[in-house]
Structures are given as structure tokens and as C-alpha cells.
């Protein structure tokens, strides 16, 4: 009798052994480790994980210590997807040849937005196009946080980073965030989703769909970073949810090409409310920059309307 999957309630989940041990060196209040803990808690099957270079990798495996209680490999910055595709190919081959038993192993790759939107997008696109059975998770904290908050294509419009500083002439990042989730949906793979740890059940249900979709899956998960976003260490979950309610980070899934909204805020918050709480946007509240808030709001609305249409909700 196939054992029943663990019920998705905090009580039941809290009984399962932690796969990411305490003692890792991610910053206090880090969104990424919450995401990893929640997603791994949702997967009952054995997992093998690849990481790209980045905060998660650095913070969890400073030799001779490792916080990983599951098989884990880091290769380089731009190849989490191709590395895990090699591990998955080995598993497929060794099982097919009867050299190791089939153990329903789930293969995951975790990488930050820099490692996914920018330097790793080619390996990601290649691996999903080849149809390896794995889930690629991007913990999107909106910049190269590990190396000191440099701008990535995931950095929000207007945000201050060390390579898109809020200067007198150029006030912060001038481009809108690359919509990577839509790009991955265009790969027509079985499962793509955007999620956030503040809506933990939604994140966990999506994780389960992703690891059981029978093919390549991609999840983009908002990971607040109090260092980079400049907010209090205790505001991680609150600000993550505010981004969702402001529809800057909508929660939806694309299952076999079917777009479905999985959360609709009762009251859509103005994006300004989210910006106001973060030091990286302080400069847009100066009179001469306020227009940037409107530009960002317009873009957020444009993308939100488009998403509603795609999900048949408009």
C-alpha cells in the first residue's frame, strides 16, 4: 500500500526529520532557508540536490561542515541545471542497468536569481528542454546577495544595488524585472509555478505537483533578503506576503500549458506599500523620483492584467 503523503499541516510536517540542519550560516531572517525547509518538508520521497554557487550554497557548506542531511552537490555558478541533469542521467542509466535499485528519488536544483535568470539560464533551458526529470527552484531575492547585493535581471525596477546605485543622475535600476517564470512556461514543460514561502501551503502543494509531474519542472520562489532589501530581520514573511498582495509577485502555476492563478489578494495593495518598507527603495520617495513608483505600478498592473487574462480570470 503506497504510504499516504504527509498531511500538509504544520503539526504533521513538524514531525518529519529536518533535511536542512540548523547550524548553517545564512543570515538571520533569511528567506531562502525558509523556502528550502518548507519545500523539502513537502517531499516525502528521497531527494538529491544540486546547488549553484550563491548564498544557500555558501551558507550551508562551509568546510568541514554541511547542513545538508541529504545527498548534495555544488559544481559551479552557472551549471546547477546541467550538473543535476548529469546526476539524473546517471541515476536513470544505473537503474536501467540494474546497478542500483529504483528508489523514486526526486532530483532538485536550487539556485539564486543571479545563478538562474542570468549566468545559469542557458544550462537551465538546455536541461529542461532535454526533459530530465528534476525540479529547478530559483530562490529569487532580487540581486547577487552573496557577493554583496549586485544588480541582476531579477532586481526590481528602481531598486538600489551596489551595481545599480541610487545616484543623483541614475536613481537605481532602470529596467523592469525579467519575467523568467513566463520564459520557463514557454519551454512547454509539464510544470512551472511562481510561489512564496508566506503562502506555505500553496508553495508545498506546488512543490508536490512539480516533483511528481513526470518531467522537468521549474519554480520561482520569492525569497526576501533583509540585507539586500534593507528591512528588519523579523519582517521577512510579512514583506514577502505584501509583495504577493501588491501583485508584484503573483502566485500561479502553468500545468501542462494550463495557466491557473492560485491566489488572488482580497484587496490588491498599491506597490508603494511594499516599496515603503524597504531601504533599497528609499530614494524613489524623493519628490524628483516619485514618478518611478508610478512607472513600477503601471508595469505591475500591466503584467497582472495579462496574467489574469492568461489564467482566464479577467
Amino acid at each position, binding site marked *: 500500500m503506497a504510504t499516504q503523503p504527509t498531511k500538509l499541516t504544520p503539526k504533521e510536517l*513538524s514531525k518529519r526529520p529536518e533535511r536542512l540542519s*540548523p547550524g548553517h550560516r545564512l543570515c538571520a531572517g533569511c528567506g531562502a532557508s525558509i523556502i528550502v525547509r518548507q519545500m523539502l518538508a513537502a517531499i516525502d520521497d528521497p531527494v538529491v540536490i544540486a546547488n549553484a554557487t550563491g548564498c544557500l550554497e555558501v551558507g550551508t557548506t562551509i568546510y568541514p561542515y554541511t547542513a545538508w542531511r541529504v545527498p548534495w552537490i555544488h559544481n559551479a555558478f552557472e551549471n546547477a541545471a546541467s550538473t543535476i541533469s548529469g546526476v539524473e542521467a546517471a541515476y536513470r542509466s544505473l537503474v536501467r542497468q540494474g546497478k542500483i535499485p529504483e528508489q523514486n528519488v526526486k532530483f532538485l536544483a536550487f539556485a539564486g536569481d543571479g545563478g538562474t535568470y542570468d549566468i545559469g539560464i542557458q544550462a537551465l533551458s538546455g536541461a529542461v528542454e532535454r526533459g530530465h526529470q528534476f525540479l529547478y527552484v530559483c530562490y529569487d531575492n532580487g540581486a547577487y546577495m552573496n557577493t554583496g547585493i549586485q544588480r541582476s535581471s531579477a532586481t526590481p525596477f528602481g531598486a538600489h544595488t551596489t551595481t545599480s546605485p541610487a545616484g543623483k543622475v541614475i536613481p537605481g535600476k532602470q529596467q523592469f524585472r525579467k519575467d523568467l517564470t513566463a520564459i520557463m512556461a514557454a519551454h512547454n514543460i509539464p510544470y512551472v509555478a511562481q510561489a512564496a514561502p508566506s503562502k506555505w501551503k500553496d508553495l508545498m502543494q506546488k512543490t508536490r505537483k512539480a516533483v511528481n509531474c513526470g518531467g522537468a519542472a521549474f519554480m520561482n520562489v520569492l525569497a526576501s533578503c533583509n540585507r539586500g532589501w534593507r528591512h528588519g530581520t523579523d519582517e*521577512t514573511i510579512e514583506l514577502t506576503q505584501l509583495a504577493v498582495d501588491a501583485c508584484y509577485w503573483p502566485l500561479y502555476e502553468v500545468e501542462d500549458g494550463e495557466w491557473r492563478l492560485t491566489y488572488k489578494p482580497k484587496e490588491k495593495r498599491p506597490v508603494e506599500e511594499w516599496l515603503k518598507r524597504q531601504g533599497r527603495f528609499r530614494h524613489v520617495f524623493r519628490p524628483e523620483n516619485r514618478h518611478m513608483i508610478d512607472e513600477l505600478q503601471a508595469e505591475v498592473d500591466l503584467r497582472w492584467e495579462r496574467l489574469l487574462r492568461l489564467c482566464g480570470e479577467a
Partner: protein
Amino acid sequence: MELKGWRDIPIGGMILEAGNAVEYLTGGWRAFRPVFGQAGCIHCMQCWLFCPDSSILVDPDNEKMVGFDLNYCKGCGICASICPVNVKIIKKAKGAGEELAQDDPRLCIRTVEEGKFEE
């Protein structure tokens, strides 16, 4: 862990003791600490869900939240901010908390192995 020579470590940079990060106590990072009103707790385990450092201690048999693992808690205060009980029973207090540990019954310091809870 005292430093080993090259003949005494696995080759290829491998780490063979999974999860040995538990030997590294990050509790020392705290500037704030969680203070816990055990009586008012409804054991909803939200704090367990949102703790970045797996530092919420759980008694799985009785499905109860029983305290914080101050060996690792970095004092971020997320548990305090998301605790759904209207009168916040987890507060973010100044100080790392060690000096209060001994006398304050509400603070429970436990070392945790594999998520199991030991007295």
C-alpha cells in the same frame, strides 16, 4: 573542530558526515532573543514553519511547541512577528538571552538531534 592534515580528510573536498553543521552553534549570533509565553501558545506550529534555522523545538508525540533551541536561534524575530495568537506570546527581546536562561521557566534551552525532542 581542530584542523586536520591532508591525509586525514576525505579526498575531493567531500564531507561524509551529513548535517554535521549542528556542531557549529550559531546561537552566538543573537542580538535579540525570542521570549515565549508557553501558557498562551495554541501550538499552531506557524513558528516552526517560518523559522529559518529549524530552532523551534517540537514535541512530536504531544504535537506541542515546547521552546527555542538557543544553540542555533539567531534571534531574527520572525517567529515573534508571525505568531498568530492576538496577544503575541513570542516577543523579540533585547539581549542574546543566555543570562536569563537559567531562571526563566518559559525559556527552554534544549539541544536537538534529528528534530527529536529530549528532556
